[in-house]
């Protein structure tokens, strides 16, 4: 009963906000995304296995890609609330949940500066491809290895402030900004990197969700969004923009977890995870988009002071060409997880992926995407924990049809 009422609380809040959304509502939106797919991959973590892609060979056929409800509502003059809830049609503990939910404070720009403050649950400002509503990529269905990792187990539950100097509003060609965030409840971040390594997916773990099924020998059905040691994590970033063409971002992130902290009841461990992210996106007048992103970091646990650490890095390059309602994109991903001597190689992985996608979006309601994704990786855990060959070459072909409607879709 108590469990049930806790689950109902976000839904009641949504209902209240929908009811309260009057003339000033920025709008609500429902997206339904169905997939026709063919895959030769091993089962992924959502099926109790380990894979480089989201869907496995047994899931070939029709699948739910995502069902999403989002609401953005002004609260008075300078505040707004944004809620993003999704269902993914797989075996997660809760069938639907919030991937983001935050309040935003946006005072008027003053003296050439603009301040934005967010409080709640949201993605740190890293991704340059996932720029569409619902933290989706307008270029491909599957996110890059970097953004897939963020989708699975990295989220800010805390406060973020961004201060921009708006040069383009003062006769200059560029804007610059600084971002700082403080957060908690993300000490599971790192479990997936050390366990499964990198994967390319478009499934975002909702709040309250778990990763890996019960009995998963590596992930053990962990909760990424947990606080164990009472220590806040921080991040700080810089952003520069040249007109509306080029964006360059750098971010340093450290969840400052105490790697010796363990919750003895559940067996959950705090993962000390820190990384540096660098990225740039350029768009030309001819419809070309180029994105390059690099992420390098380390995650560690130290139960009883015995330090196990996994340095990791990932990078991708994406080129897209848009003409009219059509977009063609190609992306190359490289990723690698190392394991320190104490870990004895457990969790080490190296791999790469090619993604090619064609998107046809005739209007704001319909989007048709055809994507071919190929991932090849060598993963120690495949052999150690799942009794498979360490090397796997997996291909997933998806046709997605998405229909979006609501007052925010226009």
């Amino acid at each position, binding site marked *: 009963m108590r469990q049930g009422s806790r689950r109902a609380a976000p839904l009641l809040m949504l209902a209240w906000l929908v009811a309260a959304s009057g*003339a*000033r509502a*920025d*709008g609500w939106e429902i997206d339904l995304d169905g997939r026709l797919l063919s895959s030769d991959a091993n089962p992924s973590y959502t099926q109790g296995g380990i894979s480089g892609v989201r869907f496995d060979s047994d899931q070939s056929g029709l699948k739910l890609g995502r069902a999403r409800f989002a609401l953005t509502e*002004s609260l008075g*003059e300078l505040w707004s609330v944004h809620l993003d809830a999704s269902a993914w049609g797989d075996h997660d503990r809760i069938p639907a949940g919030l991937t983001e939910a935050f309040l935003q404070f*946006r005072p*008027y*720009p*003053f*003296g*050439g500066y603009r301040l934005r403050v967010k409080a709640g649950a949201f993605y740190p400002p890293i991704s340059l491809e996932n*720029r*569409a*509503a619902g933290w989706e990529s*307008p270029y491909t269905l599957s996110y890059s290895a970097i953004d897939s990792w963020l989708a699975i187990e990295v989220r800010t539950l805390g406060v973020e402030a961004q201060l921009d100097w*708006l040069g*383009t*509003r*003062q*006769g200059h*060609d560029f804007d610059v900004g600084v971002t700082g965030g403080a957060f908690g409840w993300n000490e599971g971040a790192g479990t997936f990197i050390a366990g499964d390594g990198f994967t390319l997916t478009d499934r975002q773990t909702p709040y309250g969700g778990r990763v890996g099924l019960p009995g998963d020998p590596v992930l053990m059905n962990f909760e990424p969004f947990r606080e164990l040691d009472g220590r806040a994590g921080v991040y700080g970033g810089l952003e520069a923009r040249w*007109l*509306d*063409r080029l964006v360059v971002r750098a971010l340093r992130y450290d969840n400052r977890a105490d790697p010796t902290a363990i919750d003895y009841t559940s067996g959950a461990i705090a993962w000390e995870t820190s990384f540096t992210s660098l990225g740039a996106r350029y*768009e030309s*007048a001819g*419809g070309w988009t180029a994105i390059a992103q690099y992420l390098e970091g380390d995650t560690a646990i130290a139960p009883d002071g015995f330090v196990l650490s996994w340095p990791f890095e990932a990078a991708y390059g994406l080129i897209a060409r*848009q003409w009219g309602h059509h977009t063609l994109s190609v992306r190359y991903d490289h990723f690698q997880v190392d394991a320190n001597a104490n870990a004895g190689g457990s969790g080490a992985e190296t791999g790469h992926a090619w993604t090619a996608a064609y998107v046809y979006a005739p209007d*704001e309601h319909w989007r048709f995407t055809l994507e071919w994704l190929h991932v090849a990786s060598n993963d120690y855990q495949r052999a150690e924990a799942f009794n498979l060959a360490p090397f796997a070459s997996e291909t997933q072909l998806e046709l997605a049809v998405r229909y979006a409607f609501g007052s*925010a879709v*226009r």
Partner: protein
Amino acid sequence: MRASIRLGALLGALACGNARGATLVVTVQSADGKPLAGAVITARPLEGTARRPEPIKAVMDQVNRAFEPDLMVIPVGSTVTFPNSDSVSHQIYSFSPAKRFQLPLYRGTPYPPVHFDTAGVVTLGCNIHDQMVGYLVVTDAPWYGRTDAKGTWAGEVTRGRYRIALWHPRMREADAGAEHEVMVGETGSAQLTVRLGKPLTPAPLGDRPHSWDY
């Protein structure tokens, strides 16, 4: 827009009504020699006293998350109404030194016109839709207007010496700050062609969905 250009020229002629009329034609070319449409031209006589242009009442609408028109030239003392014809709310602001103001979250036309009493460029934005940008060029010049598709503006002026200034949102600072002198003499007409020294900044990308993160 066209009405206000004509009005400006007419008022200028009235201001110096004792002199004989003449035509001043200014042509603006970009650095690669192509005609530049939409450039703002202001012309000030260097001799004598010209009255300030009469203030106007202008309207700058907001349609499909954009200012419509996105650039207007208005005389000092003019007022501008900012209706919002979109179904979404906007929140208009300017932090430009020539006029700092804000219009809290609204749709329709709930606010009285805004008064612009200092010359200068006022850059307008929406605090919710960061990609929205608009410009008001507030001028105290007796003659003003914008170049047409051929890069040309023509004004009926009095004879004498004029200082011509140019402005365009994509013009580099050196070109926008440059002033040009022209003599409208006994022939009753004068022509000035200005070729910009530097290329314009690239035009804003217009084809991205509103919902994207910019």
